[in-house]
């Protein structure tokens, strides 16, 4: 066994174990952390495939930003775990169906690629695969890419307008007013006659 395959199996074992812990652990904060570990390990496996741009982006976006916000929310929630677990049976059929579908899809993908093993795309030509990806996205497929960006932008704006409520009662600071405050607005100098001492 070469060092390369050894590292691959090590990462794969960690990834599978972390993925299992995500769904078996009882504490949601722990589950989120196991998910972070599985993302990180997946990125390591991608680096073994020489897809360094995708791997680092996975760490940057999912581990560095998405999961931080996720953890943020999970920590602040005051969830009663027992009441969550009570509905386990009612959700079981949907869960089983989705799980079976995912399993089926993955099996199909693995089997078909194992049959046509030669069809697997070779690793990108040597050099920066950031550049290769960039020219694919921004030169060859620029219109689909930009349309996808516009669709996402519309979704963001729609989500904000749907959830944004202007509440009149909130207190807020106007920075311009604060910066323009003069001494005369805040300080009043009062002249007091000096008191004479008793002694």
């Amino acid at each position, binding site marked *: 066994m070469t060092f390369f395959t050894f590292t691959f199996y090590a990462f794969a074992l960690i990834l599978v174990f972390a993925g299992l812990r995500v769904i078996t652990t009882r504490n949601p904060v722990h589950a989120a952390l196991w998910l972070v570990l599985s993302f990180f390990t997946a990125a390591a496996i991608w680096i073994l495939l020489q897809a*360094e741009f995708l791997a680092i982006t996975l760490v940057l976006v999912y*581990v*560095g930003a998405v999961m*931080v916000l996720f953890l*943020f929310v999970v*920590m602040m929630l005051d969830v009663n775990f027992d009441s969550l677990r009570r509905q386990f049976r009612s959700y079981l059929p949907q869960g089983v169906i989705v799980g079976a579908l995912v399993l089926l899809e993955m099996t199909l993908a693995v089997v078909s690629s194992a049959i046509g093993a030669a069809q697997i795309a070779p690793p990108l030509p040597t050099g920066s695969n*950031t550049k290769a990806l960039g020219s694919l996205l921004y030169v060859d497929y620029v219109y689909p890419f930009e349309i996808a960006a516009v669709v996402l932008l519309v979704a963001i704006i729609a989500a904000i307008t749907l959830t944004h409520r202007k509440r009149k009662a909130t207190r807020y600071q106007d920075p311009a007013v604060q910066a323009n405050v003069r001494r005369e607005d805040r300080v009043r100098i009062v002249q007091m006659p000096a008191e004479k001492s008793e002694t």
Partner: protein
Amino acid sequence: MIEQHVLSAFATIWGPWWDPVWSFVRPVWPGIWTLTKIVAIAIPLILSVAYLTLAERKVIGWMQVRIGPNRVGPLGLLQPFADVLKMLFKEIIVPTGANRWLFFIAPMLSLAPALAAWAVIPFSESLVLSNINAGLLYILAMTSMGVYGIILAGWASNSKYAFLGCLRSAAQIVSYEIAMGFALVGVLMVANSLNLGDIVRGQEGGAAQWYLWPLLPLFVVYIVSGIAETNRHPFDVAEGESEIVAGFHVEYSGIMFALFFLAEYMNMILVSALASVMFLGGWLSPLPILNDVEVFGVHPFGDSILWLGLKTSAVLFMFLWVRATFPRYRYDQIMRLGWKVFIPVTLVWIVFLGVMMQTRWAYLFH
């Protein structure tokens, strides 16, 4: 090159026994050599952190017309070691109801990314641990991991002060990361590369060629975001003493507290070194003519790690200067500055750069 020298030195020391030993060591040699290089980066780094803490206390002391630490060793130079020993021998206290496992792992999680990011920093033309193509992205990814240590420390401590501190810190770091990322996009545009060595090589030809000039607004945004990302004054609401005691690390004591301290200062040095590499020409000397100055057959002022050190120290001094000068920002002011000032400024400058590169003044923007 150094590797060959080391190997031939081993061969002369071991004499005839070298060949069997080498056949045994050969398969694991790349691992040993990489570990040696990591240690060669990590130990000077930790020493720099030790003396940065002393420099901070001295500089702020002088700015406030005090002397600063001056009791341990000559001029107080042994103070950092006294502090480390004190920390080492203090008891580690785990609060009641704390999540023990996460409580212990949090300081390590904040220190590890701070160290890992140094793998791609080019110290000079040939001195870099890992010369990878996506170096800039790697740095961004590693620095964004550091926030986990803070969040977990706050949550696992089972203390309200710590929890408030960690929430503040998480929101602040995620916000300023965006502005920082956009500032780096500007660097990427002018340098045409994500490799940190190539970024430095693009600034050859003296101080006038540094990316500082075409990217001046982005430089300012980067430095201020760097201060905010490292939770330094005046953006240190995550540990704001006057409101939440010490924030996320309020329950930590002894060497566990020291690890957070180490990570914070290491991140400071990292941000400064990155600012030097990306905007101030890295290891290049500010005047190309200094490359020709020869003293006893060596070029002491030529392009070398010396200049990177000097530039990094200058940026670090600015960090300390800022700390001694400004009062702490209010939390809503921090958020406003990040989202409503920095992100628009960086976006406008990126578009401006793109437009200028298509005009006949493109040579000004490399």
